[in-house]
Structures are given as C-alpha cells and as structure tokens.
C-alpha cells in the first residue's frame, strides 16, 4: 500500500520537478502530462475513481492539448532565445529559496501535527451518490461553474482572436 504510494510520489514529483527545470518547453509540457497522470494515479490509489477519471479527462486530455497549442503558437524566434542574464539568475535563486522555505515550514507543520489513525478502507462513494450530491446539495454551485466555464470559453476566444480591423502592417 505505502510502496505504491511512494512509487506514485516519485513519478509525480520527479516529472513535475523535471518539467520545471527543462529549457525545452515541449519537453516541459510532456513531463507535466506525466505529472498530471501521476496525480490521477494518486486519486485512484486513494479510492476516488471518479475524480481520477475527471483528472485524466480534463488535465491529461484537454488542458495538456491547450498547453501544447499555446507552446506551438508562441514559439520564440531564435533571436529572442537569450542566455540567462544575471537578473533572471538572481530571480531564479530567490524563487527557489522562497519555495524551499515554504516547503520547510509546511513540512514542519505537517510532521508536528497528530492525526487520529483513520479507517483502512476508503469511504464508499458511488458515482450515483456523487451525481445526486452534485444535483441536489450543490446544484447552485454546479450551475455557477457552468456559467464560469462558458464565460471563460467566450473570454478566451475573444482574447485569442485576431482583431479583424488590425491592419497587416501593424502586426509585428
């Protein structure tokens, strides 16, 4: 049980860390897909099958495609590929320091807290139960999320669409 969790963690954290370190954006995106798949594996391990499938569908299926498209559409020309200047090296250093500090604080907090040992089996939750919960107790929230997604879709379309009135010579 714990062995499986550790394997999943290695896959998940390793690919995430590698994704953040790679210089090639395509590699980063592919590694992130692996990491998201690791998260889905974690959900499966924890017994939340439905969420795992949602994770696979949305992250591994949809968001990864959007990311790949964005990477391809914004491919930098070779001139813009500058070597790391001192300012950005400095920023990377402070960023990593801050992240390590946060990690230390959070880990210390987690390790110092006592949790009551839980049941060995996962809470039984059927898909039907989730559906009923979503439609009854969280019906309003579900509707609102629907609206948010629609608005986000429209907004994304408008933002990314080329302005028809823009003259070709204005474009860089």
């Amino acid at each position, binding site marked *: 049980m714990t062995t499986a969790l550790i394997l999943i963690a290695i896959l998940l954290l390793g690919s995430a860390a590698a994704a953040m370190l790679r210089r090639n954006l395509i590699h980063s995106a592919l590694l992130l897909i692996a990491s998201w798949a690791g998260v889905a594996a974690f959900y499966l391990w924890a017994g939340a099958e439905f969420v795992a499938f949602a994770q696979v569908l949305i992250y591994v299926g949809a968001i990864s495609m959007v990311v790949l498209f964005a990477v391809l559409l914004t491919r930098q020309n070779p001139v813009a590929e500058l070597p790391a200047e001192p300012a950005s090296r400095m920023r990377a250093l*402070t960023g990593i320091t*801050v992240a390590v500090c946060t990690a230390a604080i959070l880990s210390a907090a987690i390790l110092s807290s006592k949790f009551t040992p839980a049941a060995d089996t996962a809470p039984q939750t059927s898909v039907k139960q989730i559906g009923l919960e979503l439609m009854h107790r969280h019906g309003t929230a579900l509707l609102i999320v629907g609206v948010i997604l629609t608005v986000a879709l429209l907004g994304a379309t408008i933002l990314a669409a080329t302005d028809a009135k823009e003259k070709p010579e204005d474009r860089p």
Partner: protein
Amino acid sequence: MTLPVQYLWLIPALPLLAAGIGALTPRNGRNLAAGSAILAMAVAFVLSCFALNGALQAPATHAVYNFAWFDLGHDALRLGLLLDPLTAFMCVMVTFVGLLIFIFSLDYMKEDPNYSRFFCFMSLFAAAMLGLLVANSLLLLFICWELVGLASYLLIGFWFHKPSAAAAAKKAFITTRIGDLGLLLGMLWLYDSSGSLLFYDGGHGVLEAANLASLTGQTLSCGLAVSTAIGLLIFCGAAGKSGQFPLHVWLPDAMEGPTPVSALIHAATMVAAGVFLVARAYPLMSADTLIATAPVHALTVVAFIGALTALLGALIACGQTDIKRVLAFSTVSQLGYMMLALGVGSWTAAIFHLLTHAFFKALLFLGAGSVIHAAHHEQDIRSLGGLRPRMKITFATFAIGMMALSGVPFLFSGFWSKEAILHAAHEWNVSPLPLYAGLTAVVLTAFYMTRLVAETFFGQARSPAAEHAHENHAVMTGPLVLLAVGAVLLGFLGTPACPWLQARLSGTELHSSMSQLFASGGLLLLSIGLVGAGLVTGWWLYGRKLRQTAEHRDPLAVASPAVMAALASRLGFDELYAATVGRLNSLTAALANGLDRWVIGGLVNFLGQFGVFSGTLSRETAESTLNHGFDQVSASIRGSGQRYSRAQTGEAHGYLRVIAMAFIVLVLLLVLGGSR
C-alpha cells in the same frame, strides 16, 4: 394586495435584471434595452405599492426576513430584508420618480449612440438604490451603497470623451469614497462591539434596545460613548453620499452627466441614500442623547453640519449662472435641511422633506433638461430667456417646481415639509443656531429660484438657440406634468393639521385637528414672510428690469462685485481642496524622502560640506557649495518620488514573490510569537 417581506428582493432584482438585459443588447437593440428598463421599473413600482400597503397595516412593526449568507466558523454572516413604512415609502418614491425619469430619457437621449448602455446604467443605479432601501443588514446596505457609487461614476462620466465629464466622475467617486471609508470603519466597529450587522433581528439586532444599551454603556477614553463614535463614522458615509459640507464639492460637478442622470442622482437615488442611512440608523444615532455627561452628541454634529450645508448651498446657488448648477447647489442646500431635521430629532420631517424634495427636484431637473434639449444644449441662463411663450408646459411645471422649492405657502408640498423641519428646529433646545440658518436659507432659496425663473423664462431670447426653442414631445412633458401634480399634492400627506405620513413612519397614533395648524403661528407667519421677502427681492432685482443681452452684468454683481465673484467661484472650496488635500500627497512624499535622506545621510553630507566650506574660504566657492546643496536637495526630492514608485514594478514575479515571502514571515511570526 400586499407583498410579503420574503419577496421584497423582487423590487431591486427587477431593475437589476433589466440592467443585465441592457448590458447584453447590442447597440441597435435600443427598444429592447429601454423597454425592459421601463417595464422593470413599472413592475417594481407596482410591487412597491403592494409592499407599502402591507407595511401600512402594521406601521409600528419591522417585518424582517433574515437568511445566512455564508458560514464563518460556527457563526454565520447573515443578511436580511426589512419592510417597514420607511422602506416602503422610499421604494414607492424611488420607483415612481425613477420611472418618470426613464420615460423622459426615452426622448432626451434619443440621439445618443450609446442608448442601450445608458438604460443599462440607469437600471443598475435604480437597482442598487432599491437594494439599499430593502436591506436589513448594514453589510448588504454597504454593498448596495458602493454599487450606487459605481453606477454614479459610470453615469456622471457617461460622456467620457469630454475630459470635464471624466474628471467629474472621478471626483464624485473619490469624494464619496472618503466618506465611505468612515462608513466602513463604523461598520467594522459595530460588528466588533455587537457581533451582528442586522438592523432588526427579534431583539438581537444592532438597532434594538439591548444592543443600544450595551453600546451606550461603553465609553472611550475621551468620554465619547461607543455609539456616538460609531454614529459619527456612519454619518461620514452619509455626508459623502448626501453632499454635506465639507464633502459637497462633487455634487455640482456631477452636472456633467446627462440631465436625466442629474435628476436621478439629485432626486431619487444617490443623495437620498445618505439621508436614508441616517434615518435608518436613527435609533443608534440618537442612543446617546440620554447621556447628559457626553461631550458631544452624534445628532448635534449632524444638526450643525446640516445647518451649515443648508446655508452655504443656498448662498453659492445665488451666484451660479448655469441652470443645472443653480439646481445642484439648491440640492446641497435642501439636503442640509434634511440633515438638520435628522439632527434636531425629527427624522420623520426629514423623510417627509426627502419625499417631497424628490418630486419637485426631479421636476426641476427634468424641466431644465427640457429647456436644454429645446435650446440645443445651451445651459447658461444669461443666454436663455424668453422661453415662457415658446415652452408653455415646461414653464408651467417648472414654475410649480420653483414654488414648491421656495416654499410658497399652503398649496405646495415644499412649504409643508420645510415647515415641519423649521418647527422641529424651533423645538430643539440645544442651540437656536440651526433654526436661524434654516430661516436665512428660506430667504435665499426663494431669491435664487426667482432669479432662475426670471432669467430663463422671461424677457427676450438672448441667443439664437433660445430663439428657436420650441416645446418638446409629450414623452418629455408627460412626466413633467405628473411630477408637478405630485409636487403639489404630496404636501397634504403631512400637514400639521393631519400629519398622516409622520404618524405612519413612526408608527404612532394619528392625531389630527385643525388647531394644530396654527399651533406654531408665529414661526409659520415668519417663514411665510421670509419666503415673500425672498421672492420680492428676487423679482425686484431680476424681474423688474429684465436682462437685455447675454453680456449684461448681473444686478448682484453691479451691487457688490466681490461677493458675486466669490459666490460664482463657489466660495473657493475646490481651490482650497486642491491647495490642501491634493498637495498633501506630493508634500508628504517629498517630506518623507527629504527626511529620510537627511536622517540617514545628513550627518555625512553635513560633515562633507562643512569640510568643503572651511577648506575654501572664497566667496565663489561658498556659493558653489550652496548651489550644490540646493541641487542635491532637489535631486533627493525628485529621487524620492521615483523610489516610492519603484515598489510598483509591474512584474508579476515580484508580486508573487512578495506574497510567498509574506506567508513565510507571517508563519514565523506566529510560531515565534508562540500564540496559539
């Protein structure tokens, strides 16, 4: 038919829905936007009448419907709806006046390309105001309060391509925000000390006896009761929205918006909000009057600010030449009256005046709009004139509004409501000054309104625009006539002989007798005399010898140019604020940086300069040192501003990093502090 309190949310929700429809209609969907706005207001008006009907059946009770907004720990933040005669009367007034203004705008805004946007904003404005009226929670009221501010910003700056309109919108928003800060602080303090923000909650609300007793029981170190301090903070917000001195400066500039907007702001929605807030929180504001030892009572401050505003507004109105600005300052003055009434303890008189004022001020503004529309956006009364034969309906209704505002006796509503206020001020035993200020303002009001009517409608046309003016459509004159009827009839709801409105508002028994009418005979006669004096003086100065050309000097300016110039420049309040508050920012920045520079590097600099000074004794060198020093000072001041702006890098990384670092520091503080 009655409207139960749990359905009260329909009243603000309908205009809000109309605003949503207006926002989504494309530019060519003009009729859809305007139609939905007017339909929503009409239905809201009908619902408000039902609500009023229900409220009048039990005027002394506060029907509430509270619900939890979200859970906070084991507690829940609760909002609520409230139905009592105060809410119901205000709702009926706002929806009725708003409806007429909407209808008027159909024609007035006809040529504007952003027609549907206009109706969207207007509906939003009305919805926010109605939400404010039905709120049973200071928090819900505050949310709607800010929405009112937002809508006013959008509408005052509706013609944002005019720089003056954009500036006026910004000024209105920022000035009222200063007051809102007070309201926000008051709200937080209130929540801290009473644990609730609901007005009425079956004995646990903030306006109910148990809580008021605990609030008046606590005193601050300076001797003020907590309720006084909270009351004064809430009054800050009210003063901002209702244009009370010293935050009145935004109200005249709000004239940059389209005229229906001015009518809505000045009559029904925005400025009424402040007076309504004080009336709503009246139990809290007046809770401290029983403490004899208190250094100051909240209501005393309200009364004096109100009296000062009434007087100042009326004075400045005498010197304005823009038809809308005269009306704007008269609003400032009338709002002062309402605050005065609240301060001297008669909130029913204040609401009575608020209701009558809404009718005749909407009438005057729409009348002015009618004139401006007919005269092709000529607003200077010196260039108008001679409109009486050309625009008969507008003139007749405007004259009714003018007489109601001046307080012409017996027939007009303004007379009765103003009389109620003066009567209340007369009975106030703290100080007679507010009464004197009110009486002086009566004379001035009659004077400047006579001047306005004489200049605008009499004499000969003094510009081509005025010559070619002709009466507007029935779409514009219809609302004028309806408002004029209201401006006459509304006064009879609250005459001293039969104070039905006041009795219903306060939920007391109605005592009607004709002898009440002349109970304060001396004051009644005095104020009638003062109105007469104002009218006669106005006519003697402006009506007797009518203005011939637009360039002709004002009779008042001939008599005393200095006074007229001071009044025309609005007694210099704008300049004063620009010179003090506006400069405070840059001054503080410069001062802080100068100090910083001199404290840290001062000693070193001084030693260095001393060395240079003692080393070179010649006069030229000394001069160059001095110059150098001056240069350094200027450079340091310049650098200071740049250094302060450096915190705003615009780099997302930096902001994100600050958030993460702040988290780390906060956690470390918490751990090292050892708390919890």
